[in-house]
């Protein structure tokens, strides 16, 4: 399989997992937010899914940028611009490329994180998607530095994301709707960190299966 075909399968699988977890994500958001995260994300990834056909054979930058624009123009809420920005920034790293290497992967994640931070004025510890994404990125980068392959590296990224996700239960939300709850947000898992964890797990799954 070409690497751009693999990307399309990854996005397909990501969508499938997000949509399967629609109610779960919404329920998490009901408790400390406004009960729409699963609905928002499913809507976005359904729209992405509809466009994957046309993306076949296009380069990494094109596919990621189109994914980004689709998310931005269909999701709304906080997750739309944030996931959209993440994909958009990742796209800039791999513009025109039909194939990528480990360095590209690291750069894409780094840019995605920077994008979310800038758009969301947020950082690790705010109880957001960044609390799954940043640890995942750190683990991924370390794995590559230790010479591991992508399959193994994303396994480690998934583990770190899950740990980060668990950590969100223990902290006060400082950004997003959950922040309005103050202390009452403690004890509850962040929906956006959960969808990010699912996204990373989806990458690992696809890598394992292909």
């Amino acid at each position, binding site marked *: 399989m070409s690497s751009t075909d693999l990307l399309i399968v990854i996005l397909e699988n990501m969508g499938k997992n997000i949509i399967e977890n629609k109610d779960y994500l919404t329920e998490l958001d009901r408790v400390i937010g406004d009960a729409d995260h699963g*609905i928002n994300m499913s809507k976005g990834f359904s729209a992405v899914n509809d466009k994957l056909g046309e993306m076949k054979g296009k380069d990494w930058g094109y596919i990621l940028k189109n994914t980004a624009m689709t998310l931005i123009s269909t999701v*709304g809420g906080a997750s739309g611009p944030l996931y959209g920005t993440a994909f958009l920034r990742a796209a800039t790293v791999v513009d025109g490329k039909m194939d990528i290497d480990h360095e590209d992967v690291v750069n894409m994640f780094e840019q995605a994180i920077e994008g979310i931070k800038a758009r969301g004025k947020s950082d690790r510890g705010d109880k957001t998607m960044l609390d799954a994404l940043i640890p995942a990125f750190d683990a991924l980068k370390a794995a590559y530095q230790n010479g591991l392959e992508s399959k193994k590296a994303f396994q480690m990224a998934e583990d770190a994301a899950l740990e980060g996700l668990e950590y969100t239960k223990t902290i006060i939300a400082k950004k*997003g*709707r959950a922040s309005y709850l103050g202390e009452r947000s403690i004890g509850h898992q962040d929906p956006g960190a959960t969808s990010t964890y699912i996204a990373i797990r989806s990458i690992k799954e696809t890598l394992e299966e292909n």
Partner: protein
Amino acid sequence: MKKIINKSENVVEEMLEGMVKAHPQYLKRVEDSNVLVRQNSPVKGKVALVSGGGSGHEPAHSGFVGLGMLDGAVAGEVFTSPTPEQILKGIKAVDGGAGVLLIIKNYSGDVMNFEMASELAQMEGIQVEQVIVNDDVAVEDSTYTVGRRGIAGTILVHKITGAAAEKGFDLDDVKRVAEKTIKNVRTMGMSLIPCIVPAVGKPSFEIGEDEMEIGLGIHGEPGIRKEKIKTADQIAAILLNNILDDMKLEKDDEVAVMVNGLGGTPLMELYIVNNEVNKLLSEKGIKIYKTIVGDYMTSLEMAGASISLLKLDDELKELLDSKADTPAFRQL
């Protein structure tokens, strides 16, 4: 879930159509969008005002589109900010050449989507400015947080800023008035019964028969704390004291009062609350220049109310008094 709806996926679409059909003299819908604008949009030479956000807050915001208030309102899904694409359509439909001011409630989602739309509009050569309403004193405001939410006080911002735009103020001046209003307005709310997002079908929070949520927003999120249910007078005092702790009014200061229902609370109860608010403010020597009571910024069928105070000066009083003609707010 007991609602008078068809399919939960269609509530926003059918509501917007129902609004346009009810108020054709006020509203038209921008093609291929969830944007309602004034029947005569764009108004040439006038600064245009666009607001919006998730649906479920009716009559906010499309109910306030009309003379002396908004030019356009962008509706997202229930409690979900609209996308930049939708907002951009709104901006383009109302721009009359004098620039557009976006009135945004302070939620990460709204702010990000409106900002992205603003960037896109500016790229197309439209002059766009924005203000962010953050009137909810229940929420901690610090540099580490997203800051306060925008809730019912937003309606007062629509009214006053809309009057300024109607009077022919330029974009900078309209923005100045909006920011002054935002600086002077504070709100706090409470709820007895949660709402049910149609697509979710479950109450937005659990609450006991003898409990109430204090300090909650308008998206079905729980408040800052649960308490045993109290009398109307006690509730008025709790909300008002939180506001007054924050805004430091002095004797003989003049204010506008808004007692806003969240959707499921009858007007009778809002007037009972107003009775006490009026008494408490009068006792402190604060002068009530104008009072607005009703459902203006709702949260679906949530039972509850919020109190807003807007500190007035001569300019704000004049703008507050001037004519408005919209589906949900009219003033002769």
